[in-house]
């Protein structure tokens, strides 16, 4: 009897997840959507707790389950409240890794519980281990890179990484075949161990070679993997709520990955498999020196401006300049100037990174425009202020076929009447690509810490 109640409850929670995700896609209802999906989760957990299998486990296992849930809740709650907004990308990566780890462990404990007697269960169980483990270690590496841990500072390249990754994948697949052939014997156990170890290593080797600027893509991809792992974990126990919600997450992750790839004009395959090339368009004849300007002079130009567009990039996050930018935005508006933000889809280190930072600084979301929305207005803009962005405003993407980023959609900041580039110093960004924007006639560099520069501009206005 109680199992029928469970199925009904699972249905309700699936519907709540679907409604939740739908509402999450619109700014006005997003918060409500998140609430819906959390209620769906609560219902799913309650219904598994009253299912016959779990009741049959006995009171000791019940106690253990409740303690584990309580512990996880406390840790998750504290973590989510304590984290700084600037630490958001790495936290999302870490949570994602936990999801992958959990799915992997679920598959292994499903194996020890002897529910894998047929080939289909064995196959899905093996796939859960593979995907979950890659999501786990991959996310850990992503977390390390995003948190700026020293050991991940340098871009690591593995010689012949495609062969190595393919080799590891073959070994993991071999392990899955072992599990399928004979789940209950020593061969099956060996298969589980081989798959687990190989997949954990694969997650590391796959992600460690990927540079910081490509992080938005890889985070979305890992998100998709952790969802898929959850979906596959549902197969051996025939649990539909796992399959449905895991699959929803998987699909959303895949779509985000494709959106991010498109925004960088890269294919996902090239990102994973190509070995990173260093500098290609370095020596292009005469090198012009970029013009630079003091903050005082910049203020005089800014004061006369009627329309200003900010183009933020990862540098704004590093300098934590978002609050100062909001102040400048306010004084500009008081001065009768129209202010907008042009946000490139891959600016920063995760999808939508800049939007979150600026929202934290109370910039209303109507002011946050996409590159597509702002580009047509660029020629009529008095000043574009580029803050810590580089490749996303690089005109070489439009007119230099030899550039590695040729074809990538950019924010056309160079079309503005005047361009201010706030930058810490000369030199190229993470990608090592020369940016002709910096030496264009309408461009002025303002060197220094972005936060300080912006604050000084605000002070100038107030005087």
């Amino acid at each position: 009897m109680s199992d029928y109640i469970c199925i009904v409850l699972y249905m309700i929670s699936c519907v709540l997840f679907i409604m939740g995700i739908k509402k999450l896609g619109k700014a006005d209802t997003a918060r409500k959507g998140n609430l819906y999906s959390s209620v769906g989760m609560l219902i799913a957990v309650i219904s598994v707790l009253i299912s016959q299998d779990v009741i049959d486990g006995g009171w000791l296992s019940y106690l253990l389950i409740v303690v584990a849930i309580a512990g996880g809740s406390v840790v998750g709650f504290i973590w989510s409240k304590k984290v700084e907004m600037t630490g958001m990308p790495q936290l999302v990566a870490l949570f994602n890794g936990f999801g992958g780890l959990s799915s992997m462990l679920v598959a292994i404990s499903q194996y020890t519980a002897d529910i894998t007697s047929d080939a289909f269960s064995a196959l899905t169980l093996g796939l859960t281990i593979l995907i979950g483990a890659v999501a786990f270690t991959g996310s850990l590496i992503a977390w390390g890179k995003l948190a700026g841990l020293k050991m991940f500072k340098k871009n690591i390249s593995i010689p012949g990484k495609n062969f190595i990754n393919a080799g590891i994948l073959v070994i993991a697949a071999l392990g899955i075949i072992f599990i399928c052939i004979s789940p209950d014997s020593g061969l099956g156990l060996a298969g589980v161990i081989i798959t687990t170890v190989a997949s954990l290593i694969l997650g590391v080797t796959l992600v460690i070679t990927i540079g910081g600027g490509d992080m938005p893509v890889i985070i979305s991809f890992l998100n998709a993997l952790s969802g898929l792992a959850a979906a596959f974990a549902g197969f051996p126990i025939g649990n539909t709520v796992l399959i449905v919600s895991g699959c929803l997450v998987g699909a959303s992750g895949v779509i985000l990955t494709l959106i991010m790839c498109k925004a960088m004009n890269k294919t996902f395959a090239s990102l994973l498999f190509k070995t990173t090339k260093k500098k290609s368009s370095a020596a292009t004849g005469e090198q012009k020196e970029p013009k630079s300007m003091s903050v005082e002079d910049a203020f005089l130009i800014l004061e006369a401006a009627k329309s200003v567009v900010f183009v933020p990039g990862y540098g704004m996050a590093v300098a934590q300049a978002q609050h100062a930018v909001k102040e400048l935005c306010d004084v500009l508006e008081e001065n009768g100037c129209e202010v907008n933000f042009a946000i490139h889809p891959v600016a920063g280190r995760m999808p939508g990174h800049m939007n979150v930072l600026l929202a934290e600084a109370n910039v209303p979301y109507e002011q946050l425009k996409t590159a597509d929305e702002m580009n047509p207005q660029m020629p009529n803009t008095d000043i574009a202020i580029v803050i810590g962005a580089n490749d996303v405003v690089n005109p070489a993407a439009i007119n230099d076929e030899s550039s590695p980023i040729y074809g990538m959609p950019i924010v056309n900041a160079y079309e503005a009447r005047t361009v201010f580039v706030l930058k810490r110093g000369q030199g190229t960004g993470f990608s090592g690509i020369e940016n002709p924007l910096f030496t264009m006639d309408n461009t002025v560099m303002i060197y220094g810490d972005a936060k300080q520069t912006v604050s000084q501009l605000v002070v100038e206005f107030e005087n």
Partner: protein
Amino acid sequence: MEMDTIMLLIFVFIIAAYLGVELISKVPSQLHTPLMSGTNAISGITIVGAIAATALNASGNKVLGIVLGAIAIFFATVNVIGGYFVTDRMLAMFKKKEAPKK
């Protein structure tokens, strides 16, 4: 597992994947981060599998399985609770302009 059940589960999988694609494809870019962290919290649904697996292992007195299951429950819960609260914190910051300034 019987073939009927297998086919049914695959059916559910495909439909859910298609539904996911339809739901997500028109999300504005400003919501990408909350969407990612919100769906990330949903991927913690594996907690349901973890609870079921732990109980199954307990019924069979499989100590290793119980331990792994409990660890899985712990991490899945961190994923779920942390994910939902972080997403909520983010979404609470997205505000409309209070009054149109002139």
